[in-house]
């Protein structure tokens, strides 16, 4: 057990030590003048003036329209897959509803997959659609966050930056160099990176094993750096080709945390409020450790089912023990449970074990992390979500002490609160609304892979994952039907743009305000007290909103399991 704890500590120490390095570089990318050569060429091709600023509306419009064009391009390539190169296996194009779901999924940084990569996508599609959309959706998220931060920093002006410049720089200076290096390290550890589609092997017992390969490492690098999460293969990061060693597992986790944690540092530097950045990072870490402390013991304890069949699930020197259904031996319980927490905290959605086979409590942790959606969160939007809760906290506390709430030197007024509430409520509205619809929709229940309360968990997990732009799944649900493809596709789009756009509007609205000097009545927001209040508000609001639905799924299942009931 102590070696398991040591692995968790190592992850957190490495993550924390990367915050400053990556945060400084991110600040440089977002703030310094001067263009690199490929950027200059790009601006000329795009026909834009890189020196021109944009207000939040122009910035948001450019972001949404360019996302729409990329979604369309991805849609077209996927539909034309059978005419495009690099596919010795002649995999057929996906159906229109599935392609809509896939394109929406990858442009919103969700990476929900209603298909299995190895049987459905050619190597060309894995590169020119999946890898492409993974990179640009991450860049859009970080750019949106940059504009948001500039809005908070701005005084009586409308300029929040230039979308095209942010977008280009994030790709050229941050994502591509990091991913290129990481992909080569991944190959060293045993990931394939080839244009060959498949190899036929003859096993020692004489059977034929048809091994699907492809450009896996380049996809895995951006998948984790960009908190994307869609797998090259159906089994995602549980597949030995996507995650061959415990070291790649650690690198995946560090990659997922890299940008969300660095953004807190960049925020502190860009606003000259370093302490505020650290306070936000502390909130992330405290919540993360809390959830990990629930996840790990739940999986390590194993299940009553195995105990009743006299299966040996005791951890020891000769085996990791615990609930090993759906888990990989090289990761055991420790590397799996921490990965479960990281991937749903950072809303990546990459999985190194099948979440559907987790224990009820072990499955509730990732579900609840996605419902909160702001423990680290996806690149860019996670930070924005955290700030929306910080504004909510300032507002609630301001009401308690009878002062006009202020945040970062700006007065928070009715307009900002309405927009924050829109962003905060769109998330549960989307999750609970679609789950209720699916529970009532004729025929939708036939897609469930498990009976009883676990089946309900599969449903709510799907819409939570879609709305939170996570993308992980309780994989027993057969989501490749027109109903699920369409509704989950809509949940992903609503979940993405109805939190991003209102919060950009908040930033735009704060940008034009005067800065008010701090007074005795100002609630300091960079203190441990405020961090505790912030966590409290996040957990209470999230808990009150979602507890009834959790009670119908994982909580009932846990009680049934303890009572020895099967479905």
């Amino acid at each position: 057990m102590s070696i398991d704890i040591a692995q968790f500590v190592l992850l957190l120490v490495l993550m924390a030590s990367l915050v400053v390095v990556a945060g400084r570089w991110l600040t440089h990318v977002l703030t310094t003048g001067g263009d690199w050569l490929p950027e200059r060429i790009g601006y000329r091709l795009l026909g834009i003036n890189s020196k021109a600023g944009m207000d939040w509306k122009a910035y948001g419009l450019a972001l949404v329209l360019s996302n729409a064009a990329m979604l369309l391009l991805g849609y077209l390539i996927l539909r034309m897959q059978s005419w495009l190169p690099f596919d010795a296996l002649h995999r057929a194009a996906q159906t229109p509803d599935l392609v809509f779901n896939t394109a929406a999924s990858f442009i919103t940084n969700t990476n929900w997959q209603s298909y299995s990569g190895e049987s459905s996508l050619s190597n060309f599609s894995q590169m020119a659609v999946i890898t492409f959309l993974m990179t640009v959706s991450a860049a859009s998220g970080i750019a949106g966050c940059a504009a948001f931060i500039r809005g908070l920093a701005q005084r009586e002006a409308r300029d929040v930056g230039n979308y095209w410049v942010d977008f280009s720089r994030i790709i050229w200076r941050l994502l591509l160099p990091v991913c290129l290096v990481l992909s080569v390290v991944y190959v060293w550890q045993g990931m394939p990176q080839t244009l060959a589609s498949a190899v036929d092997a003859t096993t020692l017992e004489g059977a034929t094993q048809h091994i699907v390969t492809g450009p896996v490492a380049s996809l895995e690098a951006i998948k984790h750096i960009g908190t994307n999460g869609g797998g090259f293969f159906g089994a995602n990061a549980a597949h030995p080709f996507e995650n061959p060693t415990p070291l790649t597992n650690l690198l995946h986790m560090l990659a997922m945390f890299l940008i969300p944690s660095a953004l807190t540092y960049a925020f502190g530097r860009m606003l000259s409020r370093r302490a505020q950045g650290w306070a936000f990072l502390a909130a992330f870490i405290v919540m993360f450790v809390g959830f990990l402390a629930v996840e790990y013991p739940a999986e390590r304890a194993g299940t009553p089912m195995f105990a009743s069949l006299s299966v040996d699930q005791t951890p020891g020197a000769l085996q990791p023990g615990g609930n090993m259904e759906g888990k990989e031996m090289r990761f055991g319980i420790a590397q799996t449970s921490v990965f479960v927490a990281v991937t749903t905290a950072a809303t990546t959605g990459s999985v190194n074990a099948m979440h559907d086979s987790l224990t009820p409590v072990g499955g509730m942790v990732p579900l609840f992390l996605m419902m909160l959606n702001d423990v680290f969160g996806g690149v860019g939007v996670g930070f924005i979500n955290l700030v929306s809760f910080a504004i909510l906290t300032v507002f609630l506390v301001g009401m308690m002490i009878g002062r006009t709430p202020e945040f970062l030197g700006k007065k928070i007024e009715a307009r900002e609160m309405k927009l924050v509430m829109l962003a905060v409520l769109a998330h549960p509205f989307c999750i609970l609304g679609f789950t209720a619809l699916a529970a009532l929709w004729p025929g939708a229940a036939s897609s469930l892979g498990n009976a009883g309360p676990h089946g309900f968990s599969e449903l709510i997990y799907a819409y939570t994952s879609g709305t939170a732009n996570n993308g992980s799944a309780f994989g027993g649900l057969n989501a490749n039907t027109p109903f699920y493809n369409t509704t989950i596709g809509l949940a992903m789009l609503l979940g993405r743009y109805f939190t991003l756009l209102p919060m950009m509007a908040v930033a735009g609205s704060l940008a034009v305000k005067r800065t008010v000097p701090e007074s005795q009545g100002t609630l300091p927001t960079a203190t441990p007290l405020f961090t505790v209040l912030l966590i409290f508000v996040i957990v209470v609001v999230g808990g009150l909103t979602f507890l009834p639905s959790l009670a119908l799924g994982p909580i009932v299942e846990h009680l049934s399991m303890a009572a020895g009931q099967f479905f």
Partner: protein
Amino acid sequence: MRHSLVRPVLVSAVLFMAVTGIAYPLASTGIATVLFPRQAAGSLVRRGDAVLGSAVLGQDFHTPRYFHPRPSATSDQPYNAASSGASNLGPTSAKLRDTVRDRVAAFRKENSLADNAPVPVDAVTASGSGLDPDISLANAYAQAARVAAARHLSLDEINTLIDRQTQGRQLALLGEPRVNVLALNLALDSAR
């Protein structure tokens, strides 16, 4: 203003598709193929010209003279490397309970274990990928007597082989100690 967006919107989609969707994966492929050609091609294990499998993927073994991997829930056949996947069944699933019960009975029978002997959990549960290349040491030792009998070797010789093929934690810290089944079975074949 809206009109002026048409060009950057369309050009950026095509430009960055070319850069991030084509140039980047090809550059990575080029570098990886030069530096790590074996891994880039899938860590293939060869005997002469024949490809026996991949060192990082599991493959199915069911004859007594080889060590057996974990159960696999891939579609069509176990260890189908063209269709990775898991059971996705939860701990209150009656189907999973019945499957595990059958696996426990089968594992005891093929390894001549007592009716109440505990069975290592990884030997009766399917992995996440269905392609798990490894088994636990407990699982390997539980199978050692069967393999020794089938190959007319002593239990000591088999146990020594297991010890030699055991992979410790990576960097002495990460992951779990384990045995790669294909590597162990290859070592068995060359021991004879």
